[in-house]
């Protein structure tokens, strides 16, 4: 296969499918399998880019999440189960802090629940980290729906300008050093912010002039009726979402219906708004069979795990079984490691 970028949406669907599977199972063996699959795919399809190091960072955060969860359980946990492991000296906090009791007996069941629920969260974070290091952020921004085109352009420009501004900060600091001014401390930071911001604002005005002369942002003409329809759809949709949420939280039956209706209207509104925007794409990302395969393996892992596994933890604790359907579906999610085109190798100079 020739090297090319896989569509970022495919990686995100794959990762979120695996992540959804992780939140729906309390089986530590399946969770471990999901982490292994994510790590395998990342190690084989990670591009040579700065953001590709995200996976290791997310793994660290994931470990931290489990540690924090266990720590909170030991300190503040409510007693569950009967197998006492050890007892901490206990103290009750004053009323203005909810009268919380610190310490007390710690049981094996409490620890097991904390570790398993912490690992569910940690596995999901690892899946998100895999998407972060596999999918190119700029390509993700380019794939935004047409209604968000202007904001997407602002985002792409911001992403490509930010490193230049960091270089500017360094240049200003160098100039200060040569003039014998301090380069550390709050005052130095505040003073050097002025030239950095001034030059950036000049950039903005030049950029706007350049965009204007190239005819950027010319919308097609639409009738006032169509625009009123769009505004009405968006507003009614947003209000529907808010009211639907209130109803769901208040345990009313029709809340979900209202929520779905609101979402549908708001999304239609964006689509209508997008019709006014005329744009051309430079090197669009194709959606071929590797993309379909990647997305499908992630989503089918989620479906299989939801179908055969449960996220409730049974007490007394038992050793978890390995449901073959879920194992097969999760293992299939490792296929993108070999069946997708590898990412392009960057040009090397010197």
């Amino acid at each position, binding site marked *: 296969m020739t090297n090319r970028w896989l569509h970022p949406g495919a990686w995100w669907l794959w990762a979120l499918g695996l992540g959804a599977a992780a939140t729906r199972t309390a089986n530590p063996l399946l969770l471990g399998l999901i982490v292994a699959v994510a790590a395998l795919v990342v190690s084989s399809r990670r591009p040579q880019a700065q*953001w*590709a190091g*995200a996976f290791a*960072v*997310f793994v660290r955060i994931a470990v931290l*999440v489990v540690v*924090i969860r266990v720590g909170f*359980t030991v300190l*503040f*946990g*409510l007693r569950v189960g009967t197998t006492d492991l050890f007892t901490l000296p206990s103290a009750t906090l004053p009323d203005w*802090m909810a*009268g919380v*009791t610190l310490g007390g007996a710690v049981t094996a069941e*409490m620890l097991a629940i904390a570790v398993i629920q912490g690992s569910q*969260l940690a596995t999901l974070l690892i899946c*998100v980290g895999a998407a*972060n290091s596999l999918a190119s*952020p700029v390509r993700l921004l380019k794939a935004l729906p047409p*209604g*968000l085109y*202007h*904001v997407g*352009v*602002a*985002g*792409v*420009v*911001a*992403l490509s*300008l*930010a490193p*230049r*501004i*960091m270089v500017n*900060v360094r240049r200003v600091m160098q100039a200060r050093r040569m003039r014998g001014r301090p380069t550390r401390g709050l005052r130095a930071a505040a*003073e050097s912010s*002025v030239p950095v911001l*001034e030059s950036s604002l000049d*950039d*903005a005005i030049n*950029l*706007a002039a350049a*965009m204007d002369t190239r005819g*950027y*942002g010319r919308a097609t003409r639409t009738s006032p009726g169509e*625009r009123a329809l769009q*505004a009405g759809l968006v*507003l009614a949709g*947003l*209000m529907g979402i*808010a009211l639907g*949420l*209130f109803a*769901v*939280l*208040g*345990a009313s039956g029709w809340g979900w219906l209202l929520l779905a209706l609101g*979402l549908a209207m708001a999304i239609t*509104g964006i689509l209508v708004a997008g019709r006014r925007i005329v744009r051309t794409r430079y090197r669009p990302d194709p959606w071929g069979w590797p993309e379909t395969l990647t997305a499908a393996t992630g989503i089918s892992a989620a479906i299989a795990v939801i179908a055969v596994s449960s996220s409730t933890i049974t007490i007394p604790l038992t050793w978890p079984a390995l449901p073959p359907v879920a194992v097969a579906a999760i293992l299939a999610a490792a296929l993108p490691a070999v069946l997708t085109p590898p990412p392009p190798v960057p040009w090397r100079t010197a």
Partner: protein
Amino acid sequence: MTQLHVVPLRRRTVAALTAVSLVGVIAFFWPFFVSPQSVAADHATDAPWFFAVLLPLVVGVLLAEISDDGLDAKGVAMLAVLSAVATAVRPLGAGVAGLEPMFVVLLLGGRALGPAFGFALGSLSMFTSALLTAGVGPWLPFQMVAAGWFAMFAGLLPQIRGRAEIAMLMAYGALASLAYGFLMNLSFWPWALGQDSELSFVPGAPLSENLARWFAFNLATSLGWDIPRAVLTAVLTLLAGPVLLRALRRATRRAAFDTPVRFETPIEHPAR
């Protein structure tokens, strides 16, 4: 002094901002008023995921609405460059106590360029900086809404000028960055703890009890970082605020955002 609005505050924009803020308030504060019979109370650890999917949708709808007839090329360029500045300075704060330099950019940007632009700036900067540092996660939608509010309210504060304005912005910056920390804790409170700890929220319990538990959770996790961050935001606003505000206002005057575009029929020259 009247305020300049890079994104004009039409009735449509105000209504969309209000509706999205309402959804945001529900997404953050639902543990305090959820009914014990609700699905959300049974699935308290899943509810934040639901909101993490819903919030990007509504923020997307709002940004589409703002950019639809509020942003021209100048507005897009200004949004892009200020987001780039906020993104570039975010790592500078990481060593101290978090986000202060970025907060100062958002605060002054929202102040000088208006509340609707402020919301777009806050949420876009959080998004781009997360992409650049590869920090896209379930916390990002909540950060986008909270940072959007942070910049938006700076633009909604009373329009005074001079030293009083800086004093007001310092006080606001300190309070708002504290509030930001509290809000972010609130967003992951239900799933970080689960349902079986002394600090978890209790669906249907009196507001005062859940508030006390939330406060205790804040104290146990991040208050030690939140307070230095608030102080630093105020100090940075004092040191850099006056000049940066002047620079921002001068640039927006040069860009002439609120000048209406008129087409006039050219004068006929009878000689030719």
